[in-house]
């Protein structure tokens, strides 16, 4: 996005990258924790460990946006 008159605006994509990467870390972390501490009541298809690979995809996506749209100093 363009700029204001006196300030350079941080691109929205950077905020998105940060948030998605942070969420990815939490989700992957929760998925790994569950492998070592399996819950009593499991969700359907628990054995696929969706949290781990979905979290990893989110981290990669988030990092890509963070690096590509890092604010210039």
């Amino acid at each position, binding site marked *: 996005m363009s700029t*204001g008159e006196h300030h350079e605006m941080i691109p929205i994509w950077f905020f998105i990258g940060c948030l998605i990467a942070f969420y990815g870390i939490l989700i992957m972390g929760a998925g790994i924790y569950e492998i070592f501490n399996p819950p009593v009541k499991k*969700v359907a298809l628990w054995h696929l460990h969706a949290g781990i690979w979905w979290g990893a995809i989110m981290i990669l996506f988030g990092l890509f946006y963070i690096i590509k749209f890092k604010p210039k100093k």
Partner: protein
Amino acid sequence: MNGFPLLAVANAPTLTLGAVDLLIIVTYFLVVIAIGVYLKKFTNTGEDFFLAGRKMTAWIAGISFISANLSSLETMGWSAMAYQYGMLGAHAYLIGAIPAILFLAVVMMPFYYICKTHSVPGYLKLRYGEGARSIAGVSFSFMTVMVSGASMFAMAKILNLLLGWDIHVSIWVSSITVAIYVALGGLLSAVFNEVLQFFLIWFGSLLIPILGIIHAGGWNKMMQTIQQNVKIIHPTVQNADFTSLWRNLGSFDANPMGIDWFGMVFGLGLAVSFGYWCTDFLQVQRVIVAKNLRAAQNGTIIGAVLKMCVPLIVTIPGLLGLAVLLNPDGSPMVLVPESDPRARITNHTFNDVLPLLMGQYLGPGLLGLGVTAMIAGFMSGMAGNVSAFATVWTYDVYKPLIKKDGNDEHYLHVGRWTSIIGVVISIAAAYILLWFSNILEFLQVLVFFFIVPLFGTVILGMLWKRATPAGGFWGFLTAIIFSIGMWVFVHSFPEGYRPQPKVQFDKGAVVSVERQNGNNGKITRVIVESGKVDIVNVPITNAVQVAAGKKTELTLTNEVVLPPSVVQKNSTVPVQILAPEVVDAQAKTNTAFGVENVPVVLKSGVNVVYSDIEMKFAPAAFNPQHAKYIARSEKAKPMAINMYSGFWSLVVCVVVTVVVSLFTKPKPEAELKNLVMGLTEIPDEGPCPWYENPKLWAAVVLAVLVLVNIIFW
């Protein structure tokens, strides 16, 4: 059902969140407020606040355009539609959206963009004069805050049902957050959050269809299971084809919506879709703020591509609900409409299909992300409406009617305050809906019918220079009145409408249940030992005489037996028995059940509230005898009636506008410059590389649309 117990829905919340899930939700709230605070320094002028400085790139405009429409009401609502109507639900994202979005991009966008209007009512002022603008401005302002309130109400209600959160806390926390970020950053803030929400919705929702299809055994297996299960889930349309887009539209009987191809193409594809996508200001505002005309056009086309992908996270989960949601005994889970008396007592509702799938597949963290996506969808829906309200109110009501000579700073100030007032009115609307929840149903339909006449008026204004101010005004007004008239007509019952007979036991009533073959068999009789019972439209003439339409309360002095069914208007209707929370007389434990068609014995001493209900006007019911005049079939379901009503409303708008215009004086051509086709010169934006050519991409998207329709024919 015939005596078999229905699924008992526990009163406990459907989903349970853990610490990681809560952390994800709290982070979202903190981030959106931080973004609002950050963006305040970039909103220094009216143009910044109301139109985000007209600086958006095509990608941001396109994502925001589609995201403004991808609210949680939309995702949950259209998943419910797919559960109810099968594959036909996907039409809302194909013929019901794409042609209209492409038309907006290629044909209408140049006019909106060149006349530099702040809003669609603003265009009406330039083209037709103050009359048409005033109707549009006032009704649009009213609609936006009401829809915003509806969004807030729906969110609070859903969070309460799914997670057990307090309704008031949900309303206030979300509204204050929205008020902060919209008042600070205006449309820029709303757009930023819409883009953020877009990614959250995709990451929060896409896993459900992926896991669901794996669980169902692949696409083909899922379709086979659906056709088997609908015989149990939707017994009234059990012969309908739930798995096709067009193959089942040859007759009204062959599909679950009770519609034919004409209604789908001209009702949804023309009237409703073009009305919504080309003239709903909330949508159009998202793309007219792009940095130049080409970005506005390409942004709209990007929006069309993204729209075509939405069935992946909306329609497929709805279809999965028909295949993979099972009871503990392996039978298909039966969800019911919100209007069904069993809703949330013994059965989950259609609207629960997405949350139920979330609970079924999403573990810790993923569930928090799914719920965050839902909250983000509601909040950005609210923010979009509030920012549109601030723009339309400031430019189309306040500026022309209240203070014409203010400076830019003054209007910016008014815009900020209007955003806050918009949120306050939305909160009031949410509370009105809380007390009169049926209004939500009327409201959505009224919004639906308002935008179709608006499209008729705008498109005639753009394409036909002979359309006169009087023609535009009367065409618009007549079509709105006609729409409301049609709605009243299909809900009217001159011979009286009697809701299904029902017996509902109040909390704590002590009940004995007799069954065939022991504890798990079919229920054959219910005996109420003590407590309170609400009875609707079941005759108990031995005990009490009540006139039609009246209610009475009494304590029985002798035993009364209620029949398993009653005769209403020459047909036998089963009595519905609902026990959401009663005490089992033998086991002395709490229990819940729902059953039809069994006798009920009320012992002496039981308190009875008896009502005999007969209505001439029932907003929750459709009169098939009236519906057939609008939707051409008695079998038409609500959605089919809405589509045909949209079509007739467009026809009325066009006919009245044309006839009145032919008898009244048109505006001079000089005043129509840059407003009407043929009198508008499209500016040359310089050489355009092929990959930025809107017409080329519109043609590609159209070709993909045709291909998708053929594949899923």
